[in-house]
């Protein structure tokens, strides 16, 4: 890792299971920026988090020389802009950038809510509906991958880019969900062959491999989280 002399003081408030936290971690790795990873305790929010993100009280929060930056995709853009000497994360063409931002927003606003929906569903019907939506989403993302990668390994081309980080950070949860849902195929060799290859390459990338947790660990964590969500729903 390059020394951090000119990078200032970089801290990341987060937690290892969160896919949103994985995004800035991957971005910082791409830029070879060292940082202190301040992990939150499951079930509670630190004073530092509440002070740094008073509006949403959520992780991740990047603290750069004690100045907070919130919202994972916004943090990734910040990292790309500040450490502009490193490999670039957003594409250089304005239209490509718009496409990248579009798909990152799609993952968060349309695709991810169904992951939560499928994992914490209270009825078989609700679960199946969420899974159907996820599969539709996978088909759209497969199409996007084929169109945007233009035959290269990643959405970003020869190297990982903004969409790769936004969607790739979801892979541990995606794989865990497949197991938890009794073998449902979201990454499907027949229906999403491009994404299957992409997922393997992304997971093996040096900037990613120590950040993406093992599927088993996510499954264990998911059980705790689902219990918490269901308890909260029961008491509201």
């Amino acid at each position: 890792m390059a020394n951090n002399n000119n990078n200032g003081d970089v801290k990341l408030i987060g937690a290892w299971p969160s896919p949103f936290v994985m995004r800035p971690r991957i971005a910082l790795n791409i830029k070879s920026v060292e940082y202190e990873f301040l992990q939150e305790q499951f079930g509670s929010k630190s004073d530092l988090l509440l002070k740094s993100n008073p509006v949403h009280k959520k992780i991740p929060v990047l603290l750069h020389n004690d100045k907070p930056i919130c919202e994972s995709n916004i943090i990734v853009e910040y990292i790309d802009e500040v450490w502009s000497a490193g490999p670039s994360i957003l594409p250089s063409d304005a239209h490509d950038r718009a496409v990248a931002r579009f798909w990152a927003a799609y993952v968060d606003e349309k695709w991810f809510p169904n992951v939560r929906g499928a994992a914490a569903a209270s009825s078989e019907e609700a679960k199946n509906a969420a899974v159907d939506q996820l599969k539709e989403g996978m088909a759209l993302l497969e199409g996007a991958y084929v169109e945007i990668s233009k035959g290269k390994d990643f959405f970003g081309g020869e190297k990982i880019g903004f969409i790769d980080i936004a969607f790739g950070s979801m892979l541990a949860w995606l794989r865990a969900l497949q197991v938890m849902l009794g073998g449902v195929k979201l990454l499907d060799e027949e229906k999403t062959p491009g994404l299957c290859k992409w997922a393997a390459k992304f997971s093996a990338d040096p900037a990613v491999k120590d950040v993406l947790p093992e599927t088993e660990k996510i499954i264990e964590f998911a059980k705790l989280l689902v219990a918490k969500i269901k308890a909260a729903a029961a008491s509201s």
Partner: protein
Amino acid sequence: MGKSEEVVLLNYWPSPYGMRAMIALAEKGVQYEYVSVDVVNNKTQLLLQMNPVHKKVPVLIHNGSPVCESLVIVQYIDELWAGDAKPVFLPSDPYQRAQARFWAHYIDEIFEFGRKIWIKTGEEVEKGKKELVDSLKLMESQLGDKPYFGGEELGYVDIALVPYYSWFYTYEQFGNISIEAECPKLVDWAKRCMKKESVNKALPDPVKVHDFVVMLRKKFGVDS
């Protein structure tokens, strides 16, 4: 403006998201073709082709290539039509940019809170009212004493928020609240923005917005 460019905006007049794109284009002095799509009653082939994922407006079509999602569109416009003493929406400092993006993203929630007021009934309406007023007060505190969120000039956050001003009358009528009473400085800011032609031309008459919502409620079977 030597290059031949084809710029088309697909939009529907009540959409605050569409107003963002219109303000951005006007601020940059971009000539474009406005194509109205009645997304309530009749989504056209062109819309479905240009935005197959969401099937929503606004869509900016630049030399045949679509750009979707209003904030993505505003950033695209900011980046593409730069220089020549044109206004700049996003600050150049990365930290300031991150703050602007954060607030613009937050502002999208305001429309959802407001929506509860006019489409829901009972407790949901009360919840929406509280969420709306709280979020507008938060934005008001962010404004502070600056003339615009962007500082001396209209910026990214101003463009993201000001379209909702045309919906205030609707929220007030259905929610029985006064936004001016709750957030006087924010309303002052909105009126200041409205003095600009780019904003004035983009925002519809609030009474027309209210009538549009009355029609929507009938369509969705909400008792008025």
